[in-house]
């Protein structure tokens, strides 16, 4: 019985939150890695692209809600998501046309373009705050729980609750679907193959007749789509606040670099590595340990390695360790 309680406590406070957070980070890192692999720069505006897409989705969600359109137990935001993606894609394509294309034609160095993306980040940052404001926006609706903690306790008779929020389930399912679609697209379709060719060797790809403008446009559209999905899922699961999306940039980049920049598989692995390290290192294990060890050995302290305030420090530390010992990341991405 005690092992069961320990398992449930582990699932409830470590595994499920870690899994959902990891899926959100993995999606974010996929977008970063895609841009890096094909357009060859680290896109610092990615966090704010997520915020922009989420903002459009939220505004449409509110419109749907007031019109009485919903998805029953699922969040209405899923209905608004395609429109959010379309708007974000249009926005980043316009940004590319107005800003990045100029530097691409100049053959500017990646470092220069990184700084350009920093400028784009501040502009997007401002636009999002001007339109929706700096406050928390809660737009989750539908059924709150897939497994309600109180009902779970009553049904199983365990001391520990287990909760699975609808948004957490939606997050994981959506992440799996998006990743599967992306890999299918990159491996099987002609456009996907031309993108990979372009990423491998730009000159060779151009010689074999691949249209660079098309590759760039498709990359931006896919990146915008993934960013919006990642942002909406994060916002549904937690809350939407422009500043926290800006802050997400750090764990997202950590995930992409740990996995290996430019490697889609690495981005996913990196997302989960970062998420689970953050959750497990800052988790207080007292409860779980108390269930597992004999009563006389039960810990008095919290058995917490790091205070939760140091969550971001964890991603930093992993980033530094990986860069020191494995500069190309776990999956051999392109090293700078």
């Amino acid at each position, binding site marked *: 019985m005690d092992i069961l309680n320990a398992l449930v406590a582990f699932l*409830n*406070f*470590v595994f499920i*939150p870690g899994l959902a*957070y990891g899926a959100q980070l993995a999606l974010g890192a996929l977008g970063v890695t895609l841009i890096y692999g094909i357009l060859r720069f680290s896109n610092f505006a990615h966090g704010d692209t997520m915020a922009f897409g989420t903002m459009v989705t939220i505004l449409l969600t509110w419109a749907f809600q007031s019109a009485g359109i919903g998805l029953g137990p699922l969040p209405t935001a899923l209905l608004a998501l395609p429109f959010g993606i379309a708007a974000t894609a249009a926005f980043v394509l316009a940004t590319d046309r107005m800003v990045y294309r100029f530097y691409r034609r100049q053959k500017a160095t990646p470092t220069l373009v990184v700084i350009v993306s920093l400028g784009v980040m501040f502009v997007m940052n401002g636009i999002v705050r001007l339109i929706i404001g700096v406050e*928390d926006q*809660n737009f989750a609706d539908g059924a*709150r729980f897939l497994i*309600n*903690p*109180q009902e*779970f*306790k009553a049904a199983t008779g365990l001391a520990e*609750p*287990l*909760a699975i*929020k609808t948004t957490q389930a939606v997050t994981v399912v959506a992440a799996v679907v998006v990743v599967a679609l992306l890999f299918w697209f990159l491996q099987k379709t002609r456009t996907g193959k031309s993108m990979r060719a372009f990423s491998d060797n730009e000159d060779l790809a151009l010689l074999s007749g691949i249209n660079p403008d098309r590759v760039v446009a498709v990359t931006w559209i896919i990146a915008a789509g993934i960013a919006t999905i990642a942002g909406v899922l*994060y916002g549904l699961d*937690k*809350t*939407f*606040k422009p*500043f*926290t999306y800006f802050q997400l940039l750090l764990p997202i980049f950590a995930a992409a670099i740990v996995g290996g920049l430019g490697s889609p598989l690495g981005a996913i692995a990196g997302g989960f590595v970062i998420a689970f390290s*953050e*959750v497990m290192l*800052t*988790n*207080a*294990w*007292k*409860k*779980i340990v108390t269930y597992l060890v004999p009563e006389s050995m039960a810990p008095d302290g*919290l*058995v*917490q390695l790091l205070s*939760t*305030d140091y*969550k971001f420090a964890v991603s930093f530390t992993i980033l530094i360790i990986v860069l020191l010992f494995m500069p190309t990341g776990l999956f051999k991405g392109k090293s700078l």
Partner: protein
Amino acid sequence: MKKLLLATVATAALTGAGLAEEVKIGVLTGFTGGIESLAPTIAAGSELALKELSDSGKFMGGSTLVPVRGDDTCGDSAAGTAAAERLVTSDQVKGIVGGSCSGVTGAVLQNVARPNGVVMISPSATSPALTTAEDDGLFFRTAPSDAREGEVMAELLLEKGMKSIALTYTNNDYGKGLAESIANAFTAKGGTVTINAAHEDGKADYSAEVAALASAGGDMLVVAGYLDQGGKGIIQAALDTGAFSTFGLPGGMIGDSLPQAIGAGLDGSWGQIAGSDSQGAAMFEEQMKANGFDGTSAYSPEAYDAAALIGLAMAAANSTDPKVYKDKVMEIANGPADGSGEKIYPGELGKALDLIAAGTPIDFEGATAVTLIGPGESAGRYRVIEVKGGKNETVGFR
């Protein structure tokens, strides 16, 4: 023509100074930030008192009290200090009703009020640390210290049969002070505090903080935070993981927006906030209702009392100079020691001015039965609140 105009204006100004003048009073509260949902009614409460004094026509020979608003942001001491600095140096206020939160209030007191010699009466700063702050006799509060709130909360916890609590506080002067006083009072009465951990405001995700609190365990979770900030996030995350189902809600967590945001999950949680069932409270509520505000909103009655005290003290000292009228504040609030002062309730400020002019001692009761103790802070009565059916309901006073 120009000269004539100038001369007229100059004479008018000169003679005006001796007779009726506009006395500016700063209304410094957190219009943005952690308590922004409370700020409009706090400001409305103090402006109601100022208007009542002005409209009576008896305030210092027909002078009027004009409120000037300033936003101290509740959380950002630098911004709060700048706002207060503007009130004092550019608007030339003769007294300040404010600041809102304890950290900002302490900073404004040390950086603006003391150097410039301006009286500050805060309706909402409750940190025990302010009791011992150097104030040159300029600082008062119509809100009680959190040391008292800790006592009240501990008593309530024991009455409800709670033997152990998990405690989390917003990481600032207010949260820390309050959490300490709750923990001290509760342990002194035989309870156990399993964890006393800080949380930062403004994060999207509090699941890690809640996991630590849940790991420590306890009969209930006491959240000494802000209802529009991390406090709300902690409660939401605790309900989402099923870690805790009832919550203790000290003053900063009491407000209509919290049950609205959380929904049914908050039912059964309870807390307390400075407030009284005195005769004055009802009179104040009625007046506020007439102006379209909710007079039971947190710290709004205290704000009325703070503003009224400034005005009445000015009248009693027959001076708008803070250095002169500061000595009258305690006298007006408490009346003569033998209790012979005539009690003054909301809506009777005109009468109070008459009595002061006639030399009769008054005891200002106001909306919260003001009695200032120690270095000039309210003795403190608390309204006990329980969340029932998605609404804060008053279930008693102590």
